[in-house]
């Protein structure tokens, strides 16, 4: 346990150090790194990042979300996340705290809906919605679609704690609605797992820094090979500096889900 904490803290400290010195380092290593990646290879690298996480089947996990805000008591949610790769369907069903139990998000046909059993109504929400009012977005819980949504550009290579990282700048593809138009991505050079992300506003201002200190692999029968998922994600709000969000993903189950699970009726039935 202690060694895990050390690894996480080390990555966070290294990440923060990396944030400060990234431009300088990137400049020094960009030329060397650029020689080793063509644009097509960068796209392939991004596809690999997505592919490693893609299940090509169903997904169920338990998720712990902790939101800390300046001057407020930390808010903790527990939720069940269901996904289906085939039609990109998606559900987040809150189970704790009691006040939020039964609330949920349902993504069907590229529409995100929110259900609150207290009022018994469905509300259509934007795909870029902050989940449960935290600093996490729907895309943080969903399958990675970086290659589909962004065009990569190599910034260089740098050391992030114990890891050798490839640093990419991702620009949103035209015509695709994205919460963050620009992302800076640190990838583990050995595994292609995401180590760190920085998300920027249209104005160029840094909005959020995310750390992915722990990845775990699990065998997927539907895919016929291992898939990787982040067990822990830490989001740091860069506008409201003292706000942060922690996400822990646990008990991942890749067995097939009920066919009629991704429906409004199913989500409503969970709060009756």
């Amino acid at each position: 346990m202690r060694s895990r904490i050390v690894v996480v803290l080390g990555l966070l400290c290294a990440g923060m150090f990396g944030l400060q010195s990234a431009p300088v380092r990137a400049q020094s290593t960009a030329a060397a790194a650029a020689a080793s990646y063509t644009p097509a290879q960068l796209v392939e690298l991004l596809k690999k990042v997505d592919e490693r996480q893609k299940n090509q089947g169903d997904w169920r996990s338990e998720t712990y979300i902790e939101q800390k805000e300046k001057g407020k008591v930390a808010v903790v949610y527990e939720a069940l996340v269901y996904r289906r790769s085939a039609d990109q369907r998606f559900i987040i069903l809150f189970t704790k705290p009691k006040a939020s139990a039964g609330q949920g998000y349902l993504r069907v046909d590229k529409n995100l809906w929110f259900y609150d059993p207290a009022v018994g109504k469905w509300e259509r929400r934007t795909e870029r919605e902050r989940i449960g009012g935290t600093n996490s977005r729907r895309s943080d819980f969903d399958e990675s679609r970086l290659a589909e949504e962004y065009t990569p550009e190599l910034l260089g290579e740098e050391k992030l704690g114990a890891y050798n990282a490839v640093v990419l700048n991702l620009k949103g593809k035209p015509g695709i609605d994205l919460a963050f138009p620009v992302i800076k991505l640190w990838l583990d050079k050995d595994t292609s797992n995401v180590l760190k992300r920085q998300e920027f506003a249209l104005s160029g201002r840094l909005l959020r820094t995310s750390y992915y200190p722990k990845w775990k692999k699990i065998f997927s029968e539907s895919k016929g090979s291992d898939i990787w998922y982040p067990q822990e994600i830490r989001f740091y709000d860069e506008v409201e500096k003292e706000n942060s969000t922690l996400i822990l993903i646990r008990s991942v189950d890749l067995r097939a889900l009920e066919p009629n699970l991704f429906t409004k009726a199913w989500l409503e039935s969970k709060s009756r």
Partner: protein
Amino acid sequence: MSALLADVRIAFMNLVEHGRRSSFLGAAIAAVTALFVLLSALSSGIRHTLVDTATTLTTGHLNVGGFFKVTSGTAGPLVTDYQKVEDLVRREVPELAFSVHRGRGWGKLVADEGSAQAGISGIDIQVEPEFRKVLDVFAGNIDELAQPNTLLIFEQQAKKLNLKVGDAVTISAATGRGVANTLDTRVVAIARDVGLLSSFNVFISSDSLRQLYQLRPEVTGVIQLHLKPRYVDNLEPIAARLRQKLEAAGYRLMEPDPRAFWMKFQTVTREDWTGQKLDVTSWEDELSFMMWTFRALQALSFILMVILIGIMVAGIMNTLWIAIRERTREIGTLRAIGMQRGGVARLFLLEAVMLGVLGSIAGVLLGGLATWLLNAAKIHVPLTVQLFLMRDTLVLTLEPRTLASSVLMISFVTGAAALYPSLRAASRKPVDAMAHFG
């Protein structure tokens, strides 16, 4: 005619004759009238304050707003090609005094010591001179709002976020397509609170709002129509005509819905359409979330007045019964010397109506004086009252129409209350009346 004048004279002399009773009853009528005038002045004052402040800060008398949906699930409070719409409005609404356009948005204000959600209005301060008249800016310079990336906030927000003029505030918001964006602004003016609206509204320049929400120059949030004063109390026919003209010009319109634009987001995002739909609303619609307090006050005033008038009617009837009992022999004598029943009834009615007119005129004068004194005292109202009053002092407004109707109504009620006792008095037989000892 001369008979009527004689009756009036007799009625007046009777009132003078029974001076103590008349003055007691007249004072009661005057007190009720004065209270009625005060309540009406309070209601009018609140309404005028609401209209004046709200129509400068957040809404026109009428508004042409609406939503633009890029996809069926994403709606922005936008009017595209607003110049064409504004031209049509100017052509088709002769009641229009002037119009302005404002940007509408919602975002998070992030300061060093805190953050708060706020409605963000984009304003062109150079073309809205009335705006600075309504606001009491106690720190900074409102004219600087013409510069890009500047911010006007209210006292309450400044306290909450610990801000002063010159401090930096980042506005974080999502564009119409849901893309995160920020705008770094500088506080250039802090205004005194103007009720509920100032607790969640801030102002930036129109161009800055466009930059934040990535809007093109031909896009705005709402066209606010300010009408000539005489048309302000009759908005519905103008709104209906405007809707008709906009539809005839090919614009798609939302169903009339008497709610503020931000309360319609859920309904609009649930609907399955894309593109532009315009929405014509009145200032009362845009303030619907706070109008219930005003209506509740009006309802309470009405109930209070009904109770007071009820008490007044009972008092008049009772006093007249006593008067008739005391004057039964007098009625008998009048009947014996040839006065008809109608004449007797008319005499008592005239007494009551005369008392009503004199009492209500005195009441109007008294109410007017009390209103003037209350306004002169500049009574500071508690914060909870300020929230919907939209100012920190109590203002009562006297309307000539209300004063005239007060006199008419109270006189009529007094006359009506006297009708039955007068008819009963007239129905007595002269012999019985003359033989009465009481």
